[in-house]
């Protein structure tokens, strides 16, 4: 893809464009959080970029990067000129980012989702609440230090009788060579101890029952 957009941005913003790349034809530009809204608005309004079509806004978690944990990425497209750009910035864990809701209306739900999944707050968003998870949920699921199997049930689980079920996947089943041990990488990560196969009685512990969160998952005593 042509690099016209990157060149235009560099011409306009100079040093405020911290990095740019074009891997596999995807143009990408990184800015600092303080320039986030300015560059975005410029991309929409400038006659040579005309990025009026908002596509997506998402985040990626790099917990090992202490100074700025999250990458927030914006995908844009121009309806008329048919070119694309990816705009990226890095925010720290408690650092709010400017909301783009008045630049493109579509960022409303995308920012809510980033808040829900990662905990990044957006300044200027009129209604920043959880969108995919429920309000009682604690934590931010897509962060790397949120263990995937930690459930927070709204309705206490009842005792199941008459049928025997095993948990589908233990922590060390499948292909453990490919998996990253986040517990050891992220300091302070509160991850459950891996349930070994055949640990207690030759059967897998039922992860889904939240067995290792005994006391935290209320189990109903009656149906």
């Amino acid at each position, binding site marked *: 893809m042509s690099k016209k957009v990157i060149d235009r941005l560099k011409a306009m913003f100079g040093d405020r464009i911290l990095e740019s790349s074009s*891997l*596999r034809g*995807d143009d*990408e530009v990184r800015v600092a959080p303080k320039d986030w809204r300015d560059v975005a608005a410029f991309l929409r309004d400038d006659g040579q970029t005309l990025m*009026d*079509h*908002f*596509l*997506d806004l*998402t985040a*990626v*978690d790099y917990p090992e990067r202490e100074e700025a944990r999250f990458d927030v*990425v914006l*995908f844009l497209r121009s*309806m008329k000129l*048919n070119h694309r750009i*990816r705009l990226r910035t890095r925010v720290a864990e408690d650092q709010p980012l400017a909301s783009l809701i008045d630049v*493109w*209306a*579509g*960022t*409303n*739900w*995308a920012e809510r989702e980033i808040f829900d*999944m990662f905990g990044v707050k957006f300044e200027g968003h009129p209604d920043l609440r*959880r*969108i*995919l*998870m*429920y309000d009682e949920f604690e934590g931010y*699921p*897509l962060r790397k230090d*949120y263990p*995937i199997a930690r459930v927070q049930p709204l309705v206490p689980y009842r005792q199941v009788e008459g049928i025997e079920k095993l948990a589908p996947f233990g922590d060390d089943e*499948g*292909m453990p*060579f*490919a*998996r*990253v041990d986040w517990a050891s990488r992220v300091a302070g990560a509160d991850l459950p101890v891996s349930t070994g196969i055949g640990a207690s009685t030759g059967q897998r512990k039922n992860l889904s029952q939240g067995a290792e969160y005994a006391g935290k998952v209320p189990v109903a005593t009656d149906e």
Partner: protein
Amino acid sequence: MEPNYEDLSDDRELELPAEPMRINMGPSHPAMHGTIRMVLELDGETVVDLDVQPGYLHRGFEKSCERGTYNQCFPYVDRLNYVSPMLNNVGFALAVEKLCDLKVPERGQWYRMALGELARICDHLTCNSASAMELGAFTPFLWCIKARDYLWDILEQETGARLTHSFGRVGGMAKPPTDMFKESTLAVLPAIEEALAESELLLLKNRIFLDRTQGIGKLSAERAIALGVTGPLLRSTGVDYDVRKTNPYLFYKDVDFDVPVGHDGDNFDRFMCRFEEVRQSIKILRQVLDKMPTSGPVDCPDLRYVLPQKEAVYDTIEATIAHFKIVMEGLKPPKGEVYSFTEGGNGELGFYIVSDGSGTPYRVRVRPPCFFNLQAAREMLVGDMVADIVPTFGSVNMIGGECDR
């Protein structure tokens, strides 16, 4: 009832309460479009405000993809837009291949196109017929489901499953096409066209259908673009943006088809866009089946990413090692990020993949077309009446798996 004397104002006129009424709709509700909750504020029958609350089918797709290998993402990806699973499969495979810089052989690309278009037809048939059923027209639903079952029979013959095939693989497909593929598809296409024609005959001159879809749920092109709307929803507002035309992938530039575009942005235009797209998909399918080579490999022969043939695995040590590494460690794309987009059933289906060089994806983000389409639903519905929610919501084609992931 006798008037409450406190309600009488000073000049003895009765003041009735006039706050909007708040009503909850969902998350389990009759419109067979999955599960969504809407909190409506009604003034009589008119919708004053509307809070669409998705997320009731959030199944942790993105987190689950970080847990296995790239090929293990295919079943999860299938269940995103579960009415057109092959389109998701193809989209994800293309994204990983873009990152790995893999080139799928010609036959594999044509095969992907064919299965993808079959899936797209299934999607549009389901959406339109379910919308019609919710308006009271039960018969077109039965006809379209019958037609969809024929398509599912073909997909079952090819992939082994009627729905959620998990047939895509990075670098190709799980298996090459069967010998009966071309023949059976060509045999089924007239039945699809017949179902379409008969449904249209029933619906398009029907007063009730027209009154409930024309002029209802309007969306303007500018708002649609700002909201990030794509797909039939955007095309019904008059903007002709179809990824297959603007950024062709696979062999879409070698087939001849049109992109149906509406002009009002109302429910009727969306309905017609979808039916026309079925016709265009049938046209594409005929060309693809004509042009697809009848022999040749479907998978890219790159041993770093694609499983070798079973016979070679038993015979040669290189294939055994390659098989071992791909299965045990997962295929390892180079470190980097890529965004690849295709035309899904609802619009631009994008996959943003972040790879850290290992066999496990670091982040798989799907750009869900109907998430942003659903965001537009609020604007389409405010000002209309409660009964208009049903056809409008049906025409948005909110697929829970894709919207909530």
